[in-house]
């Protein structure tokens, strides 16, 4: 293992450059793919049983990664405790390592300083992966939309599959959002890679 030794001023300089580059590159939100809402999806080759089996497996065992930013985390924690129990959907296995997880739950306000790390985390996840934007701050920056330090919505940094409104959304709302994501996964096909 090679260890590079650089001064702390150099580390801060590199971090600051990364943030500035990301800020310039993320001026517009990443467009949401809407074609899964269309009932007549055109496919070239149809794999019904393979698709059905893979989609069932992927939607039954969605593993979130433990990377949450702010207060919506506590609603997620509430959803994973005894009363609301996301373990029923197979999601109680929260893997701390992004390489083994499928789902990034973007819970909480994202600041520009944290944004390169979230992008790095998303890039490290193995395909196929999904994201849920939970709460007003994740959808659009929430009440901090005009702030000098807040990214106005996670969709400037990572592509989002499902948006869950609320500030914070109640655990039942989170479960409804997860169910929407499961319906979306059901409609995927291996003939059209994400």
């Amino acid at each position, binding site marked *: 293992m090679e260890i590079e030794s650089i001064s702390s001023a150099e580390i801060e300089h590199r*971090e600051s450059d990364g943030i500035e580059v990301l800020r310039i590159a993320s*001026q517009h939100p990443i467009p949401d793919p809407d074609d899964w809402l269309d009932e007549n999806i055109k496919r070239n080759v149809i794999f019904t049983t393979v698709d059905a089996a893979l989609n069932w497996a992927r939607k039954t065992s969605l593993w979130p990664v433990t990377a949450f930013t702010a207060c919506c985390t506590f609603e997620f924690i509430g959803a994973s405790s005894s009363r609301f129990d996301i373990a029923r959907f197979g999601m109680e296995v929260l893997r701390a390592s992004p390489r083994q997880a499928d789902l990034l739950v973007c819970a909480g306000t994202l600041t520009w*300083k944290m944004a390169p790390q979230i992008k790095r985390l998303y890039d490290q996840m193995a395909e196929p992966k999904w994201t849920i934007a939970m709460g007003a701050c994740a959808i659009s920056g929430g009440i901090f939309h005009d702030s000098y*330090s807040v990214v*106005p919505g996670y969709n400037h940094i990572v592509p989002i599959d499902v948006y869950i409104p609320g500030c914070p959304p109640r655990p039942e709302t989170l479960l409804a959002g997860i169910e929407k994501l499961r319906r979306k996964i059901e409609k995927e096909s291996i003939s059209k890679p994400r």
Partner: protein
Amino acid sequence: MTTAVDYNDLVALLQKQFGKGFTPATDYVEMPAALIAQVAEYMKNTLRFDFFDMVTAVDYSDHFEIVYRLQSIQNNSLASFKIKCSKNTSVPSLANLWLGANFQEREIYDLFGIEFTGHPNLKRIVLWDGFEGHPLCKDFKGKVYDTAN
């Protein structure tokens, strides 16, 4: 409960040591900026105010106010000080007396632009190095992100 000291008594003590310039109010003592280093050292070593609770700054549009809060664990009391200073001013740093002042003074420098002389490591702490401007000043124009959506 930690109770505030009687500020009239505190001002009497300080005036005996350092001369005039201290004004008591109900919740704080107002003092000139030049005396802060000696007063802090007196408060810590002689009056045993050994716990540095916080330092923060307020921007009234024509001047800044820096607010200090010190607590004494042995006497279970607290004391508050305010300094009026102008923009682009520099204030002596208390980071060598109390370690708790280190990060808080960096935050004030980051968000207000007030420089603390004698601080061992005065650079931005909550924002990144390349950020231009000091956001919590009333005349900070514009946010980082400018398209309307």
